[in-house]
């Protein structure tokens, strides 16, 4: 036990003892050096085991002999586990993590997780030097790595991913948590979660916490409408029961400028997903891009549509289809915008503070209302989907889909016909076979926009193709040889004349009445014929 004196070599010898009688179990508490933990600076520390895993591992059925239980359930469960060889992991207290609290309530918190298999292959010993110079070695029982626990709020994984996507755009990072808090409150107050989330998402983009916005469209709208909005928006943000300093709110004014630049957004990945694309067109993608650019500029919309309708007259069907899909999108946005202003209003009322935000609200509303008005007249021609219009808060995707498909179908049909003969005008479009029930009313404007420079043919106008169901044609046939009505009908196939079978029959009957051909019975069938 005594340390031997140093010999001639400059080394000192110490005895090493491994005490046997100690009842103390030694463990290692490891901290990351980046956390800069100085244990000697601690005034007070408490440590306890984290037992939260017990209820996962422990017995789940605490009910014994009460209602809802089965007779012999426990035994059955046990035998079942044995049969399948399911071995439950025991809940060992020594393996549970530690929770270390330093310096009381206001101090730091650490969670210590046990490091596995420290004692398996090599043993660790703690060598301490005793006052008498000898070393004492104690074996290490466990190693726990302590990590500091965050007391501040953090984003969840999904939110973090979103923010990561916006990291290049958002300049003011303080607003991120601000909006998250705001959104959490909203989830508490409002019932309409969908809209909230939508609004929340868009909120983050421009960083305007107070205003619910569904699309960037609104953002542009409000930007362009007035600058007083910015101050209103700020008030709106700081309003909803937040204890944030106004300094942060002021910071947002600066950020507004940056969000101005945000207005021109790149198309994200998922943006093109819901769009209806006409697969027969060749130039789909190239056409969509510039039109999308057109869309993002607020005031260009009415003009854009007018332009579109003008160009429709000249352009081919393909382009027009894409534009229609664009219009559908706009309409969708317009539809979703109406619930948005309604939402906004509701929220503002609930917080009930400054009126300035109300003003901004109303401005937003009127702007959007204007939009609606401007948009719907030209749109009415484009879409008769009255059923799914402004009423619902859901975007009218079902109607839009069917409308789109109807368009594409019609486009397909008319294209086919184009090869054979110039497509008929509106009057004959309506009786066309491909007409869908969805749009009875809007037939006339649509084809008028839709139709290319073809003459509006009627039944009476002779056309270049000889399949028209005209008197002349019938006369020719009957002169050539006697035919039954069936044969005649076969000659005027509905596909080629563009009439429905009923119509064909009627028209044919009328023609025959006028011609008054002679009758002959051949093979028990009534044949008509004419002699000139």
């Amino acid at each position, binding site marked *: 036990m005594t340390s031997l004196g140093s010999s001639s070599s400059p080394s000192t010898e*110490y005895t090493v003892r491994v005490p*046997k009688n100690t009842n103390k179990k030694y*463990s290692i508490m490891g901290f990351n050096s980046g956390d800069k933990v100085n244990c*000697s600076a601690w005034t007070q520390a408490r440590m306890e085991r984290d037992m939260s895993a017990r209820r996962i591992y422990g017995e789940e059925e605490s009910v014994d002999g009460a209602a809802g239980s089965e007779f012999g359930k426990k035994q059955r469960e046990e035998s079942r586990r044995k049969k399948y060889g399911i071995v439950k992991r025991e809940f060992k207290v020594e393996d549970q993590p530690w929770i270390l609290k330093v310096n009381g309530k206001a101090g730091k918190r650490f969670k210590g997780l046990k490091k596995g298999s420290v004692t398996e292959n090599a043993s660790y010993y*703690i060598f*301490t030097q005793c006052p008498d110079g000898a070393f004492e070695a104690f074996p290490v029982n466990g190693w726990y790595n302590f990590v500091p626990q965050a007391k501040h709020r953090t984003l969840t994984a999904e939110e973090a991913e979103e923010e990561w996507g916006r990291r290049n755009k958002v300049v003011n990072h303080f607003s991120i948590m601000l909006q998250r808090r705001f959104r959490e409150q909203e989830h508490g107050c409002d019932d309409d979660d969908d809209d909230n989330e939508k609004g929340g998402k868009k909120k983050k983009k421009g960083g305007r916490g107070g205003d619910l916005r569904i699309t960037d469209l609104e953002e542009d709208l409000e930007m362009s409408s007035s600058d007083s909005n910015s101050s209103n928006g700020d008030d709106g943000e700081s309003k909803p029961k937040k204890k944030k300093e106004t300094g942060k709110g002021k910071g947002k004014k600066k950020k507004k400028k940056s969000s101005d630049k945000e207005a021109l957004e790149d198309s994200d990945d998922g943006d093109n997903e819901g769009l209806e694309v006409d697969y027969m067109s060749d130039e789909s993608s190239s056409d969509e891009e510039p039109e999308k650019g057109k869309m993002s500029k607020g005031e260009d919309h009415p003009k854009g549509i007018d332009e579109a309708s003008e160009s429709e007259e000249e352009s081919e069907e393909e382009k027009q289809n894409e534009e229609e899909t664009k219009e559908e999108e706009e309409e969708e946005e317009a539809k979703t915008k109406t619930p948005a202003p309604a939402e906004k209003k509701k929220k503002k009322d609930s917080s009930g503070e400054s009126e300035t935000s109300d003003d901004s609200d109303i401005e937003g509303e009127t702007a959007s209302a204007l939009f609606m008005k401007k948009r719907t007249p030209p749109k009415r021609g484009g879409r008769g989907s009255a059923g799914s219009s402004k009423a619902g808060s859901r975007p009218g995707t079902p109607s839009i889909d069917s409308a789109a498909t109807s368009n594409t179908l019609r486009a397909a049909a008319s294209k086919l016909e184009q090869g054979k003969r110039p497509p008929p005008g509106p009057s004959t479009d309506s009786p066309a076979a491909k007409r869908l029930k969805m749009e009875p009313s809007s037939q006339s404007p649509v084809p008028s926009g839709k139709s290319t420079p073809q003459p509006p043919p009627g039944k009476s106008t002779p056309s270049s193709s000889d399949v028209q169901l005209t008197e002349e044609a019938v006369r020719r046939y009957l002169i050539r040889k006697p035919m039954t009505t069936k044969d005649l009908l076969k000659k005027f196939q509905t596909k080629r004349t563009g009439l429905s079978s009923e119509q064909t029959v009627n028209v044919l009957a009328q023609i025959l009445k006028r011609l008054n051909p002679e009758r002959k019975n051949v093979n028990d069938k009534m044949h008509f014929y004419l002699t000139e």
Partner: protein
Amino acid sequence: MSNKTEINLTGVKQSQTVWLVKVPKYLSHQWDKASEKGEVGKITIGKKQGKTEVSFRLNVELTTMGAVGEKDGSVLVPRDHPFTMQTVGGQTLAVYSQSDSDGISLEGMVVHRAECRPVVNDNYMKLKKLQLQESTKPQRLSQQLEKAVTTIFKPVANHDFNLEHDKKKKSEGKMVRAERQVVLDMCFSAFEKHQYYNIKDLVDITKQPVTYLKEIMRDIGTYNSKGAHKSTWELKPEYRHYQSAEEEEEEMQTA
């Protein structure tokens, strides 16, 4: 139920410093064989050409492997172990001790890490070879038997268990139908204890023939063919009066 223990910070306040030494298993094994005093060897700390050299020398009596007192002369545990010293590096390591009586106390901070390495010589190689052989042995071993085992299972005309069963059946006789009211009372008291019962279990409890019991159950209960409590009988709603605590408990069960 958490017992928060106040950590005794005296050690760390006094800036107690310790070394964390990694010791090979065989050496720690030898240390376990040490005497009551606990002396296991000597450490020499010297300076050679400016570098600190630490070496540990195992006591002679601990060099023999095998139980204390035995002399296993074949393989000796090496005696000299130089320590390789390392800095603590990217971690701040503290040592705390836990005891049943005194609670948790922070003993000190680790200032040096060391690895205890043996001097590599033939003896050590032999030791390692032995260790390897030990570790490569499979845990399970198939052994071939010379003769078939005849002691455990013998073909029997009728097993004991079966005989007992038959005897029991004979003694008890067939289950007699008791009075309907009696059976009903038994059922109700059973259902007071549990909500769902298998028909077999009910037969066991009431000792009634199955058909009779089924008839009665059809009167007062319903049969669950699907759902959580499959193929079980439960009382009809009008007959039961479980409190709303039942719902809480059901929730607890499903949670």
